[in-house]
């Protein structure tokens, strides 16, 4: 039908097509979804007008509840109500043992036994991985986006802590895939915040974004110039956040109450953590607060927590963040004096002590006038909007970096860096290795991420073997290993023996990530849902196409239908046109619409041809044939 639409060159007959995209901030404590509507980016609320979705999922045998309703059942149903799942993303069982050794019982979940390296939490709805639980949160946000925007989504930008390693990024992307979301880009949280802040304030120069969330800390040093947001360096700790403040306070409470945490039930432990969190929040407003806890029927405790005590509890944690700030400044080759603004992001920057210490460190009053909870989602929405092509001026550009060095294991368990941290991405780099034994025909490639010299101190990302290359004396084989990091910060590795051309490549499926088969199984489980989804999508697409066709035929008929068609011809076309319009509103399957459209196409084929000729004649009138050769 395209030929019906003959328009001036360079002028589209299609009305400007606005594509819908969302930005998602998948947080440790709360998650948000935002989008750009009528040129303005804002977070989307649920039916009750709430923007923040607590990142809590409660599983029961027949239902999955996400958000506030789940959070309210945390103390009552601790084993089935999962919170702070982001801390487990991309983590293996071994990692968790290391990470949570101080409060081994701080995770009130039961983990399933098994040989899987990925931890699985036992719930009433079966064993759940962090990826599945995150997917359940993402589904709610996606639905909120679709319902608010009233249309299919083109895709989403999902934010991750800048300091997330490859395994954690991959896990986040897997969760989105599982939730049926087309991931336009994984975007670093501080970068997203800088976009929202930079576009809003119009600031140009060097800016530090200090992002302290519930479970992660990021610092990014950025250069803002003419719509370009260039990350100069990034640093942080993917296991440090406001949760740790709560834990420090909780430990203090237990000490004061003379209670041993190992004697407490999961419910009581949850209760202590919740009280600790409330006390922390209260101290942002007041100088002291009372804490009351009923451990059991015959054991309760009341005490006062004031700001001085709080400060001594959290100062060591804040100090850790400042050390990261210093390192990031050094990596960026920037002096503190050059930083024009420090942008505070993340709920934990509400703590007064944090603001105070950060201000002292950077010797400037930190910016707290933007909502630290929403700014990341808003930045993500702006990026999503630009990526789907709605950004008319098209100046926005985000240039990001690799947060942690990538390397390979070499002899003696040493990690040899191939790409160092803070290298701009995307980046591709190759390194040649050789064999160390005569006649060696295979080589194991072990990819690691981290800053330490020993492989054991770095994070293992992937292992694969390159086999079957010809036997050489030691040192004669040339094995070229190429790392490619894409704009999402995700790594793929390929290796090639140069003298023989033997090749091996892997998408880096992290050692501690999910196996392909596991993802497949999860996808299968949600397949039925996906099939429905796909049908709905193609019907929607055909409806849009039908609208376009109807509009085209109507405008052509109004234009020259009288001159070019006989009365019978007109009648025939109009009748089929009418059928299409009815189908447009009644069809339940895409195929019905397709049939109606091809019928209209057939009946109007002659008309199209006549219009085509007329148009060509018109445009050639007054010209010599030679000119068209």
């Amino acid at each position, binding site marked *: 039908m395209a030929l019906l639409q003959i328009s001036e060159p360079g002028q589209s007959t299609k009305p400007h097509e606005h594509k819908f995209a969302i930005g998602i901030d998948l947080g440790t404590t709360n998650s948000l979804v935002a989008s750009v509507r009528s040129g303005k980016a804002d977070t989307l609320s649920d039916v009750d007008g709430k923007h923040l979705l607590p990142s809590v999922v409660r599983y029961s045998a027949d239902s999955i509840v996400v958000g506030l309703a789940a959070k309210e059942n945390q103390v009552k149903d601790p084993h089935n109500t999962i919170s702070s799942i982001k801390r487990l993303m991309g983590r293996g069982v071994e990692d968790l043992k290391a990470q949570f050794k101080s409060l081994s019982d701080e995770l009130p979940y039961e983990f399933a036994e098994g040989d899987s390296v990925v931890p699985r939490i036992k719930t009433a709805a079966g064993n759940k991985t962090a990826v599945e639980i995150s997917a359940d949160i993402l589904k709610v946000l996606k639905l909120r986006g679709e319902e608010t925007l009233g249309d299919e989504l083109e895709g989403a930008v999902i934010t991750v802590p800048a300091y997330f390693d490859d395994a954690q990024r991959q896990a986040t992307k897997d969760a989105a895939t599982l939730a049926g979301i087309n991931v336009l880009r994984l975007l670093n949280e501080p970068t997203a915040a800088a976009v929202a802040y930079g576009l809003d304030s119009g600031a140009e120069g060097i800016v530090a974004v200090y992002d302290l969330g519930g479970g992660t800390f990021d610092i990014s040093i950025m250069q803002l110039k003419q719509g370009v947001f260039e990350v100069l360096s990034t640093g942080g700790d993917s296991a440090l956040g406001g949760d740790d403040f709560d834990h420090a306070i909780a430990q203090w409470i237990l000490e004061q109450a003379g209670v041993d945490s190992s004697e407490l039930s999961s419910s009581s432990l949850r209760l202590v953590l919740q009280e600790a969190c409330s006390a922390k929040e209260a101290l942002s407003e007041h100088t002291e607060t009372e804490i009351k806890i009923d451990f059991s029927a015959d054991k309760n405790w009341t005490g006062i927590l004031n700001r001085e005590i709080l400060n001594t509890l959290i100062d060591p944690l804040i100090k850790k963040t400042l050390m990261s700030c210093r390192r990031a400044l*050094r990596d960026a080759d920037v002096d503190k004096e050059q930083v024009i603004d420090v942008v505070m992001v993340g709920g934990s920057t509400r703590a007064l002590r944090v603001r105070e210490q950060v201000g002292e460190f950077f010797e400037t009053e930190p910016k707290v006038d933007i909502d630290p909870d929403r700014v990341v989602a808003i930045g993500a929405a702006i990026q999503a909007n630009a990526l*789907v092509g709605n950004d008319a001026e*098209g100046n926005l550009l985000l240039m990001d970096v690799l947060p942690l060095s990538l390397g390979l294991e070499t002899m003696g368990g040493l990690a040899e860096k191939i790409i160092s941290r803070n*290298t*701009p*991405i*995307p980046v*591709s780099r190759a390194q040649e290795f050789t064999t160390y034994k005569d006649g060696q025909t295979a080589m194991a490639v072990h990819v690691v991420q981290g800053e330490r010299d020993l492989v054991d101190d770095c994070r293992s990302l992937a292992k694969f073997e390159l086999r079957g290359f010809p036997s050489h004396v030691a040192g004669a084989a040339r094995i070229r290993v190429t790392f*490619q990091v894409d704009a999402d910060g995700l790594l793929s590795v390929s290796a090639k023996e140069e003298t023989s051309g033997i090749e091996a490549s892997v998408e880096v499926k992290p050692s501690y990530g999910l196996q392909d088969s596991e993802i497949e199984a999860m996808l299968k489980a949600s397949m039925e849902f996906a099939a429905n989804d796909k049908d709905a999508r193609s019907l929607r697409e055909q409806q849009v196409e039908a609208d376009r066709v109807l509009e085209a035929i109507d405008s052509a008929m109004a234009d020259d239908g009288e001159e070019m068609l006989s009365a019978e011809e007109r009648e025939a076309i109009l009748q089929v046109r009418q059928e299409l319009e009815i189908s447009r509103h009644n069809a339940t399957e895409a195929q019905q619409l397709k049939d109606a459209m091809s019928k209209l196409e057939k009946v109007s084929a002659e008309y199209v041809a006549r219009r085509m000729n007329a148009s060509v004649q018109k445009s050639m009138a007054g010209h010599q044939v030679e000119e068209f050769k």
Partner: protein
Amino acid sequence: MSDSIFNLNYFEIFSQPVTTEPDVNLLKQKNRELQQQAHPDKFANSSDADKRLAMQKTSLINEAFETLKKPVSRLQYMLTLKGVDMNGETDTSMDGAFLMEQMELRESISEVRNQAEPLDVLATMLADLKSKAKNLTIEFSESYELDDLEKSREIVRKLQFISKAEKEVNEIIEQLEDELI
């Protein structure tokens, strides 16, 4: 930007003459311009092939930028333009006096914590290393111009030593400063 970017050398990509001291601000400006055109975000709606090409182009621009930004890698790259690949070289001869000096420096770095004002001592060391590097770069310029590749190589090797020492000094500064926070 045409696909021929893959045929350009790093200096050409940034429209700069081959030089030991490029205008870093100009490099940064040009980098932003190139990224505006080539970055994968500008091809989010394109075919997979175009996306891939965008990733490769941007990877190349980033690699070129990083190489030219840092003095040692820049000089090393200049040598590759004259056919000298310093990666994996086995001949690492260097004059004895320089090596002796470096060994002494390493020793004072490792003992700096015993000094009364270690941060001041380290700052002096850094300034000293920077001025040495500057002089060596000028020397390199001359020998490179004269096609004395052997000498140019040796200078780069010296610069590698200096850059490594700088890194060590910075690491200790970092540790000391972290202790002060």
